[in-house]
Structure formats: C-alpha cells, structure tokens
C-alpha cells in the first residue's frame, strides 16, 4: 500500500507538476541557467577586475591611505593622525618637490662617444621623491641593477647619499650609474636606474623625471623647508583585514572628521585608483551593466515560459480549485514549483560555472586583459543561489497572483480557450513591486551607485511602458488596415495578432525588451571604446615637452623635424600658472571653505575637494583639438577685444571649461571665474563646456581662455612629439637637451604602448561579452517565439483539417511572426539608441557615438530570428498528423 506523503499537498503537487512536464522543466531550467551563467561569468570578470584594480591601486600608492598636504606636515598633526589610525597600522613618510638637478659625470666615457654629447654640468627640472625605510608598503619599484625594491629594502638611498633616477634623466643629463647629481646644497651618487615605477605621489605631481632620495638626505639639500613648494604625505598601511574598499571607508571617514577643516587631504588607494585606472573602471561599470542585462533577459524569458506553461495548465488549475484547493494553495503549488525549478537551475549553474570559469583564461588565450582570472566567489555564488531560487518567484508574482482569478466554473463552459485570464487593474501593480525593488537593489549593488542603478531601473520601466504602448498601437493599426486586404494568409496573421491581444502585447514587450537590451551592449561597448581610443586612432606621442620658454618655441619648432626625420612638434600650447580666487565673486566657494573635509563620503565630493583651492594651468587657443568636444554653449567667438567699459559683463573674456571639472565645482554657463596670475586679477566668463578625452595625451586644460587675453602673461609652453622609433627618440632627446637644457621631456613610449595594448585587450574582451549577451538574447527570443508557435498548435491543426494548403499556413505564421518580430525589434533598436544616449550622457558622462548600422543589423537579425523560429515551429507542426497533435481532443470519446 502506498504510504501518505509527509510533505504538504501543495509541495507534492508542485513536484508532480515539475516531474510530469519534463519539456517545460528542461526549457525553463536551461533558460534560467543560461541567464545565470551569463550573470555569474560577467560578475566573476567584474570581481577579478576589481581585485586587480585594488591590488594595482595599493601598489600604485604604495599604501592603503595617504594623508597629504602641499606643505610639511607638523609634528602635532602627525600625532593627531597616528592616534586616529587603527591599532597595528604602520606609517611611512614621503616628500616630493620639483627642483633643478645638475649632472656631474665622473665615470669613464664610453669608447664610442655619442654624436652630440650632453654638455657637462647640464641642469634639468626633476621631481625629487624622498622616501624612508618602509617604502613601499605594497608593490615594488624595479631597478636596473638592484632589481625589486620592496618595503624595508631601500637601504641604499635611505642610509647613503645615493639616488635612483628615471632613465630619461640619464639620457637628458648624459649620466649613468656612478655619476653624480647635485640637488640643492647636496651631492649624490647615482646608484641605479628605475625601470618600473608603479607609483606616484597622491598630489599627482609627475610631469618631470624622478629622482629617489632618502628622507634624511633631502634635509641636507636645503630644499625642503617651510617656504618650499613641496608635498608631504603620511602613507598608511592599515593591516590586511581593512585594506579593501569596505574596510578603508570608516578609517578614511574618521581621519577626515579628525582633520576637520585642515588643508590635509585624505585618500584611500581606491580613490587614487580612480584617477589612474579610469579605463579599467569603465570596463567594470560596463560589465556591471551587462550582468544586469543578462539577468533581465533570463527573467523575461523565464516569466514568458512560465506564463505559457500556466496557460496550458489552466484546466488543471480550475479542476484543483473545483476539488477544494483555495486560491492561496493554488498559488503555493505553482510558487513552490518555481522555487523548485529555480533551485535546479541554480545547482546546474553553479556546477557549470565552477567547471568553466577557472578555464576561461586558458580557453580565451590572450583576449582577457593581463592578470584577469575570473573565478566564482562565495559572494557571487550566494547572490546566484538567492537569485536563482527566489528570483523567479518574485518575477512571476504577477502571474501567480492572476491564478486567483481562474474560476472553477470555466470547467462547465466551452470555448474559454487557453491562456491566463488577464485584465489590467491598477490594484495589481503591487505584484510587480517586489521584483522591481529586488532588481533595483541588485542594480545598485552591481553598479556600486544609487544613481546608475536607479537610472537603469528607470530606463527599464520607461521602456516597458513604451513597448506596451506601441504594442497597443500596433494592434490598433492592424485592426484598421486588416479590412483593406483580401489575402487569407495576411488576414489570418493579423487576426491572430489582433485577437490574441494580451499575448501579442506580452510578446511585443518581451521581444522589444530583449532587442533593447541586446542593443545596449554594442552601444555601451562603443562608448567605452571611444573613451579609450585616441582621436582618429592616433598612437600616443613619444615625448611630452614642458617648460618651453617663449623665446625657444620658434627655434624648437624648426629643430625638431630634421631630428625626427620630418615629424614635427605638435600641439604647442601656452601654459600660464594661476590661482582660482573667486567664482561669481564668491571667494569662499573658490577656496573650498564651504566644503567640509569631514563630510565627504562619495567619490564626487572627494573630487570636488581636490579641484578647489589649488593652482591651475590655464591656456588659450582659438581652435579646439580633435580630443575635445563642446557639450554645452559654443566655442570662442574669436579674439577678445577689450572694452574701455570694464564693467560691461558682456565684455568679460570668454572661457571654456572641462565639463567634469565644471560639474565638480558646480560651474555653469555664464558663471564668472576669477584668477590670480602673478598678482594680476583676470576674469573669464564661461561660454562653453568641453568634454576632453584625456587618454589622447594631447595638452588639454581644465580652463581655456579665448585668444587676446593671456598673451602678455608670463608663460611657458608645452608640446608633444609623435611616435618615434627608440633610436630616433633617444637621439632627439639628447639633441634637444643639449640645445634646450631647461626643457623637461617625459618619455611616453612605454605608457603609450601599455595604453594601446590595454585598449586592444579590453576591446576584445568587450566584444566577447557582447557576443555572449547576444547569444543569450537570441536564446530568449527563440524561446518566446517557439512558445508562441506552440500555443498555435490547435489553430494550425484545425486550419490543416479544414483544408488550408501548407504554403498558406506557413505564410500565415511567417507573416504573423514577421509583423510581431520586426515591429518589436525595430522599436527595440530605436529605444536602444535612445537608451544608449541616456547611458552615455548620464552614466558614463561620455560622448555618445551614433552607429546606425549595428541597431539596424540587430533589428533585422533578431526580427529574422523570430520569423525563422516561427517558421521552424510551424513546419514541425505541419509534419505531424493532426490526430497525433490533438489526440483525443480531436475526436473526443
């Protein structure tokens, strides 16, 4: 005798439903699995990139936190800061300043002297970095002879009057290891050359060749006194448990609170990384969005499959209700089934992910950026478990709620048809809220931003409303136009769309959303790539020249082409040092006094602090560069013509401001900025905001004056020399040093190559992700179209029984799917273009690049997928005998 099940009836029934409908179970599990694998893969990439960023940023800063000021930090301040730090925290000090260095060669010259040797006793502008015994806490400095320098190992410069120099300084001063350098009052011996320096001072002062010296020996130079323009930093290692972003945040906050309105700035290595690893951050943001897209596609597909399934189970549900199962119990049966299916999908997903993710770097070879090793983290597995098990329940809550409207009385009525009863009711809107709220929270978690997460949800809701509205319009349009045609296939197709109103709108929304999301991927990819690439695909320059004097620029311009084989000096731009004194006459705003150092908790607030109260490099020119785009206002009207009526506001010189800089300082068009240039007050009225592509390495400026204002101001020039071969570059560098000892040259060859390689790798990784999402989107569209076709089995079979020839039936179904598919995918692509614009301007704050071919190709491709799927499904139905398809339903006995 069969024993009674210990489980509640609804769980038992849920299990029976799952077990008995294997095709649905398999389809649903695979659909959810596909979306979840996409989510987990992308999430794993994201985590790996974050880890890479964190590790790189620690190495770059050489610490977890830096507290710095553009002066020496007092002993009282040091004590106060040390008290605020957590127990076990370690502190080291770094001081940085710009100074002149004089080369004194003492080694035996090479047997074959260079054709144009650098004169003895040459002087160069250098950045001196004074370090102590603990330098660096993280990462390593690589020296030509001594190899890696980790924390505790820089004894060479700390205990001796020795220095390590950047390679370009060796070239520019004609020095090598063993030679001497004079810094201020002290003489140092060069003991090594820095071949790889991952770090920089938090001040960002890095546009000069570097020299590393010991802290104690800096004092001997006499350069570091209270009157010197220098930067000093306390570098903190907090300990392993709190060195990640979450752990550092409270320490940074308490330090800021302790420092109050002091000019000491506090930054974690995460903050510092935001400046240096912008490209990787872009990729990370992108991946967060793609992960959401993959998940949303799976949700759309899953809810569609479940709705189709329940539509076919409607008589069974009515029977259960007739037998005494109340509404809640009916919902529990199918809710439990969803949890069961979700659990199965999750287990499968986790197993597949555990197997595949570690193999991805090997499978994808060199496509992944260096160091990226995606692996399933406990956190990702936990999210997947939660999402997979209960996510479907939330997404399908509106469908489950509608089960309550199934009346057992339908069992006594004929012609009720399949499909869940549906009538729109505002009171049912709450059923969408849990899924929307969960997705919203997930979006915020993924994007690490309330703004981006909310914007994403906003786009989805607006898109859903647009698609539903256009679905209704399509039905109205077909209703009107249908009367004009006498074609049976077209008539049947339009009738099916018009009369299956709810199904048509649901499919339209699902296909449209799928297309929209798939469209977003290449659109976001374009945005990210446009951020990374230089204008017109130009390679970064080889040399960046600074400190060019007014009287040197003509001679320099003439000299460079013969040295480089015809390559000229580019982007020669004037540079005027100035101090921002007021914004619209408000001096407090300009000095940052109204910004509370203790209260800044967001990235935006921190960046605001950095922008105020510091010197700026101003420039002027009448044309904009290829790396600049005007985002608001207009570029300069021409040369400034002074007006004797000084008080006339229209005659204040025009200035163009970089848009992100303007945003941080709360600047807008028509605002007036006041600057102090060597004691002279100069005002500028903002007439345009510019988007600047900083990766271009063109000489770009936050603030640009129109010509005719700053020409008389004391200034120097900066310029670039495009890509050169190593040999030509070295010769050029040496010759220029000889001719212009004061000009500093930064070698960008290695940086440029790294950027190009990274851009290429990221482009490939982005393409791969786009392809993965496209496949996932196609699978969802296929599932939707296939289920739509399956729902039509009875109708198609009846048409066949009534004698409709196969061609007519095929054309009927093709037309139906083509109308639905192409209308939805076309609208999906159009909404996708709009959404990509919103993302470009609001999320990435980037320039929107319009690529009409991709949305067109996607609309055509996805529309064709819908049509072909319908055709494939109907062909299968046509091949089967009606008696097999309808069975007893045909001749019911």
């Amino acid at each position, binding site marked *: 005798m069969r024993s009674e099940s210990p489980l509640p009836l609804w769980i038992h029934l849920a299990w029976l439903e799952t077990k008995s409908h294997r095709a649905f179970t398999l389809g649903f599990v695979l659909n959810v699995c596909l979306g979840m694998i996409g989510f987990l893969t992308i999430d794993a990439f994201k985590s790996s990139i974050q880890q890479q960023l964190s590790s790189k940023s620690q190495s770059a800063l050489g610490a977890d936190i830096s507290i710095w000021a553009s002066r020496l930090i007092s002993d009282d301040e040091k004590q106060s800061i040390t008290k605020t730090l957590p127990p076990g925290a370690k502190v080291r000090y770094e001081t940085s300043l710009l100074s002149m260095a004089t080369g004194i060669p003492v080694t035996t010259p090479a047997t074959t002297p260079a054709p144009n040797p650098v004169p003895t006793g040459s002087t160069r502008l250098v950045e001196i970095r004074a370090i102590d015994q603990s330098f660096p806490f993280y990462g390593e400095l690589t020296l030509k002879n001594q190899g890696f320098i980790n924390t505790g190992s820089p004894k060479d410069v700390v205990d001796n009057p020795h220095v390590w120099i950047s390679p370009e300084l060796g070239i520019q001063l004609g020095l090598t290891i063993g030679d001497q350098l004079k810094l201020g009052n002290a003489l140092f011996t060069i003991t090594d050359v820095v071949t790889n320096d991952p770090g920089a001072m938090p001040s960002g002062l890095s546009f000069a060749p570097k020299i590393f010296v010991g802290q104690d020996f800096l004092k001997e130079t006499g350069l570091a006194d209270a009157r010197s323009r220098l930067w000093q930093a306390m570098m903190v290692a907090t300990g392993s448990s709190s060195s990640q972003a979450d752990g550092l945040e409270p320490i940074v906050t308490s330090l800021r609170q302790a420092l109050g309105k002091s000019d000491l700035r506090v930054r974690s290595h995460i903050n510092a990384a935001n400046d240096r690893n912008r490209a990787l951050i872009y990729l990370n943001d992108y991946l967060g969005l793609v992960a959401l897209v993959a998940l949303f596609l799976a949700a759309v597909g899953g809810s569609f499959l479940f709705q189709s399934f329940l539509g076919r189970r409607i008589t069974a549900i009515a029977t259960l209700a007739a037998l005494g199962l109340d509404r809640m119990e009916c919902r529990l049966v199918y809710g439990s089934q969803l949890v069961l299916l979700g659990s199965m999908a999750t287990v499968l997903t986790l197993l597949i992910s555990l197997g595949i993710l570690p193999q991805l770097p090997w499978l994808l070879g060199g496509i992944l950026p260096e160091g990226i090793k995606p692996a399933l983290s406990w956190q990702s597995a936990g999210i997947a478990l939660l999402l997979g098990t209960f996510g479907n329940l939330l997404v399908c809550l509106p469908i489950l709620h509608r089960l309550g409207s199934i009346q057992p009385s339908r069992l006594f009525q004929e012609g009720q048809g399949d499909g869940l009863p549906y009538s729109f009711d505002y009171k049912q809107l709450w059923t969408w809220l849990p899924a929307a709220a969960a997705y919203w929270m997930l979006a915020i978690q993924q994007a690490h931003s309330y703004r981006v997460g909310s914007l994403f949800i906003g786009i989805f809701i607006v898109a859903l409303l647009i698609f539903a509205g256009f679905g209704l319009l399509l039905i109205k349009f077909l209703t009107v136009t249908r009367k004009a045609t006498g074609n049976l296939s077209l008539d049947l197709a339009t009738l099916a769309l018009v009369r299956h109103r709810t199904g048509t709108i649901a499919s339209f929304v699902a296909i449209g959303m799928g297309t929209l999301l798939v469209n977003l991927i290449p659109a976001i990819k374009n945005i990210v790539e446009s951020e990374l690439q230089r204008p017109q695909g130009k390679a970064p320059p080889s040399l960046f020249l600074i400190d060019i004097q007014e009287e040197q620029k003509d001679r320099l311009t003439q000299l460079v082409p013969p040295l480089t084989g015809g390559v000229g000096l580019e982007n020669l731009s004037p540079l005027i040092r100035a101090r921002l004194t007021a914004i619209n006459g408000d001096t407090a705003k300009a000095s940052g006094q109204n910004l509370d150092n203790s209260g800044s908790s967001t990235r935006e607030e921190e960046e605001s602090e950095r922008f105020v109260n510091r010197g700026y490099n101003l420039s002027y020119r009448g044309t904009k560069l290829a790396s600049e785009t005007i985002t608001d206002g207009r570029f300069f009207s021409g040369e400034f013509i002074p007006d004797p009526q000084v008080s006339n506001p229209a005659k204040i010189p025009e200035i163009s401001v970089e848009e992100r800089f303007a945003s941080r300082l709360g600047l807008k068009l028509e605002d007036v900025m006041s600057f102090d240039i060597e004691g002279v007050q100069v005002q500028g009225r903002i007439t345009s905001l510019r988007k600047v592509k900083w990766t271009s390495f063109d000489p770009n400026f936050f603030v640009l004056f129109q010509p005719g204002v700053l020409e008389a101001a004391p200034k120097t020039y900066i310029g670039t020399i495009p890509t050169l071969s190593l040999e030509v570059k070295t010769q050029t560098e040496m010759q220029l040093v000889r001719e212009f000892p004061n000009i500093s040259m930064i070698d960008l060859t290695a940086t440029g190559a790294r950027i190009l390689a990274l851009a290429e790798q990221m482009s490939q990784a982005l393409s791969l992700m786009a392809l993965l999402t496209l496949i996932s989107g196609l699978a969802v569209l296929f599932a939707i179209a296939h289920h739509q076709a399956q729902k039509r089995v009875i109708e198609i079979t009846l048409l066949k029984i009534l*004698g409709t*020839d196969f061609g007519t039936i095929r054309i009927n179904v093709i037309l139906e799917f083509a109308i639905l598919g192409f209308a939805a995918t076309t609208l999906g692509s159009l909404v996708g273009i709009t959404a990509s614009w919103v993302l470009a301007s609001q999320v990435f704050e980037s320039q929107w690049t319009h690529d009409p071919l991709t949305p067109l190709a996607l609309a055509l491709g996805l529309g064709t997928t819908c049509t072909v799927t319908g055709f494939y499904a109907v062909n299968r139905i046509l091949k089967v005998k009606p008696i097999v398809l309808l069975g007893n339903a045909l001749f019911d006995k």
Partner: protein
Amino acid sequence: MLTLEKVTKVYEHQRGVITVLQDLDFAVRPAEKVAILGPSGSGKSTLLSLLSGLDRPTQGTVKLLDQDLGAMEEKQVTKLRAKTIGIVFQQFHLMSHLTALENVALPLRILRRTTPYEKATQALEQVGLGSRLNHFPHQMSGGECQRTALARAIVTEPPLILADEPSGNLDSQTGDFVMKILFDLVSQTKSTLILVTHNEALSQWCSRRLLLKGGKLHEV
C-alpha cells in the same frame, strides 16, 4: 461515395501491439445517412480519422469518390478533404480568436470561393445564428458554438459530412435541436452523413445503423 476495403489499423505501443480495426469492409452510398455506434474504446475515433483522411490504414484501402486516400500525398488529401468533407466535432473546435462569421467563412476562403462572407452569413442564418455573426466562441453558449460548427461544415456544400457525437457536449434539449438542424441541412444539400455516436436514440435518426465491435462493423 466512400469505400473501405479490408482496412486494418494497428497501433504499436511500448507495452505491445493493439489492433483497433481488423479487415474492415464498409461502403456508403451518396446521400445515405449512416450511424456508427460503439462503446468507448471500440475504435470509433480511429475510424473517423481514417474516413477523413487524417490518418492512414496499416493495411487496406480507403476510397473517397473513387480516389484512394492511401495512395495520395498528404497535400492532395488535404485539398480533397477541403472540397468534399465537412467535419463536426464533439468539442466544436472553433478558432477562439475568430468570430462566428469568420469561422464559418474560413473554409470558403481556403477554397477561394467567391463572396465567402455572404455565404457564411446565409449558413449561420440557416442554423439560427443570424444575430450572432460577430460573436466570438467564448461569447456563445455550447449549443450556439455547435451550430456555428455545423454551419462551417455545410457552408462549402460538401458531399460528405462526418459528425462526431455532435450533441455529446450539449444538454438533451439543445442536443436534439442541433441534431434536427444537422439532419435538415444534410437533407437540403443531399449530402452523405456519417454520424458517430454511442447514443442509441440519436442513431435512430439515420437510415442505416452500424455497430463497431471487435474491430469490425456489424449491421444493427
């Protein structure tokens, strides 16, 4: 009109072979009204499928208007069925998204007949549904749905009408009403009628009654 010669139909299942019809011989003359009786599981559904060309016999031949259905391509059978057979199902099988008028006009449109909607309107008026032309199946009663299905079956004036328990889903009063309409229409069009039922009383309406038992037809 319709001839079955030595027809055998065997179904192969995982649990064995089931012979539903065995060496069955059967002939129907034009304008004849034949009732086929039989208990559940006797093979009535199988016989109807064979008669309508929706299935093929394992052995033997089924000839409609002297054409061997077994020798024809499925497409040809489909065309022949559209022209010569009207089918009435117990469960109506109306297109749920089409109105009564559209449902009835559909076979005419499939056959590319002229003025399909006028003819469909006439057919619906003949079955007393002139006022329900634009109603959908779910807006009509069971009797009205079955009358719509009757109108759809006769609208092309087919020489053969296959009716599968047409009053099976209706109450006795509505069932009788529908049956009367069916027989009136068949008489008017001089069509051949094959009525499958397990209802003795209904079978009395036919001139010839056959009992399907043991895979063979027996005169009653």
